[in-house]
């Protein structure tokens, strides 16, 4: 008999297996950091997403210096001068006569902390006369570093909210279809197939076209979430339904019926929880689809609208090869999309390894 007082559930055991996978834990930490920077985007970034200065259009990343007149000093940046070259391109040069130390917790653009507490403090920044572009600027002289974190708010949250909506629908529809079977099953599955039949991206475009023009950015955001979930739930419902078809034949379902539990209770407590191990890694593996879906919409200008940032519309600038050649830093949002998608996939795979009993028994050999 074991000493522990609290019993380990299957999930606890699976979590212990997950902790042994270093790569997956690393990805989870990285993902956690990305989400933190998105939540605290106002604070982490030196400028607000809309703070622009057109004198610094496509300014390259600002160099940070720590060496001046033969001595170490606190980090600082020089002022930036611009001139036009023979091809009417701007050439930026450091103006060594001006020097702006980088200070922590400086006052900058006003924002509301958590949307509630008015606040002006930023993690770091320079005096208002200078500009700091850690990762360069975009065409309007907005700080890409700041905009990436603001963009993360949209891109990262859309995956979570989207999967939440489509999973709720998928579990309910799949659970009902699988548990009752027969005609209900037929009708629900034909509806699912209708959604799966239409190629996803075109359905996305068609639905987006149906969203009224006068929607403000928040409404557009929710419209996109709903559209993405609307497309995503059908595949999931089918798989859940398949699992429920076999789960409903289990003895404990018959036992639950014989004890007078209602159909809703049986589906919710005795059938759907058994799809949990599948659902958890399916969630992890589906979230990237939502992030990519939003990025694709925003990239072609149908998603989040300027000046609001999302990783997709930040990349819209990078659609021209000329821009990439001269201002390579505008590709940075792609790196963030890439990292996020990789992280979710690695975590999803790791979860599948430790949740799927079939794989587990195979590993022992």
């Amino acid at each position, binding site marked *: 008999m074991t000493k522990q007082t609290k*019993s380990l559930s*299957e999930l606890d055991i699976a979590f212990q297996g997950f902790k042994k996978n270093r790569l997956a834990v690393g990805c989870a930490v990285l993902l956690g950091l990305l989400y933190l920077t998105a939540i605290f985007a106002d604070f982490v970034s030196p400028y607000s997403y809309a703070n622009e200065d057109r004198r610094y259009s496509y300014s390259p990343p600002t160099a940070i210096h720590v060496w001046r007149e033969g001595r170490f000093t606190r980090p600082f940046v020089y002022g930036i001068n611009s001139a036009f070259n023979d091809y009417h391109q701007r050439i930026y040069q450091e103006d060594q006569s001006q020097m702006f130390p980088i200070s922590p917790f400086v006052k900058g653009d006003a924002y509301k902390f958590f949307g509630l507490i008015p606040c002006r403090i930023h993690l770091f920044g320079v005096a208002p006369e200078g500009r700091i572009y850690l990762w360069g600027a975009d065409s309007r002289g907005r700080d890409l570093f700041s905009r990436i974190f603001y963009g993360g708010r949209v891109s990262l949250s859309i995956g979570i909210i989207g999967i939440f909506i489509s999973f709720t629908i998928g579990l309910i529809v799949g659970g009902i279809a699988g548990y009752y079977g*027969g005609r209900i099953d037929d009708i629900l599955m034909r509806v699912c197939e209708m959604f799966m039949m239409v190629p996803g991206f075109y359905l996305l475009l068609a639905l987006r076209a149906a969203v009224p023009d006068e929607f403000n950015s928040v409404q557009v955001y929710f419209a996109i979430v709903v559209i993405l979930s609307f497309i995503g739930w059908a595949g999931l419902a089918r798989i859940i339904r398949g699992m429920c078809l076999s789960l409903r034949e289990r*003895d*404990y379902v*018959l036992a639950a019926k014989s*004890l007078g539990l209602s159909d809703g209770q049986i589906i919710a*407590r005795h059938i759907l929880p058994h799809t949990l191990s599948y659902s958890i890694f399916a969630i992890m593996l589906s979230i990237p689809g939502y992030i990519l879906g939003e990025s694709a919409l925003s990239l072609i200008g149908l998603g989040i609208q300027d000046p609001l940032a999302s990783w997709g519309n930040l990349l819209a600038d990078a659609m021209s090869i000329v821009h990439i050649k001269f201002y390579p830093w505008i590709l940075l949002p792609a790196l963030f999309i890439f990292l996020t998608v990789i992280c979710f996939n690695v975590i999803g795979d790791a979860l599948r390894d430790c949740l799927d009993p079939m794989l587990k028994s195979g590993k022992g050999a």
Partner: protein
Amino acid sequence: MSEPLLSLRDVTAEVDGVNESPSLIHRVSFDVTALKIVALVGGSGSGKTTTGLSILRLLPVALRITSGKILFHGEDLFALPGHRMRQIRGKDISMIFQEPLNALNPLLTIGQQINEVLICHMPLTAKQRRERVLELLNIVGMAEPQRVAQNYPHQLSGGMRQRAMIAQAIAANPQLMIADEPTSSLDVTLQAKIMDLFRELRRSLNLSILLITHDLGMVRHLADEVVVLQAGKIVEQGPVARVLESPRHQYTQQLISSVF
């Protein structure tokens, strides 16, 4: 004698949609009187379990009752609407199954599973339900009710799982318990203990039991009356002493001679 608790009248079940199919049970009629333990015996495939499930209207989708009545307190169970039938399941008639490991949900603790039945059928507060769970585990003879309530089914031994399932079945004070081969997955000493428990429950909870089994030893020790099924038909029924001592039908004689 008063009106029987449960009576089956000419119950026939067939495979749905198949013409000319042999009926699985054919014109089965017997009574369960209050406080009696009635045994339903027969070989594999004789229709014992089908009879048990048809009382609760839980036959698999492919099977259908084609004629007959099942009266519980004089009320025809087949005529009841679905929600009334659900109130009767667990509350008035409950059922326990052959393999407790399969009949308990592996993802919920024993306490949670008993609690569920209480939520369905008893108007109790959360605190009262917690106490009732411990009380029930105590009634079925669990040594450490507190610990067992927090355990998952796989952490219990076979005998304890069977007791946990019985606790679930008696949670809402039913009048009748259908026990489908309750001891066939247990060893002989445990079988004796479960039989003791059944006797004890009948006495303390006024429980009648419909015992579905192929174990004539158990029938002899536990049951008051016996109904012998062969290929879906009743071949003999009567008090246990009479049927086992002087069986009239050849099939009953064969059953007895193959055991003793």
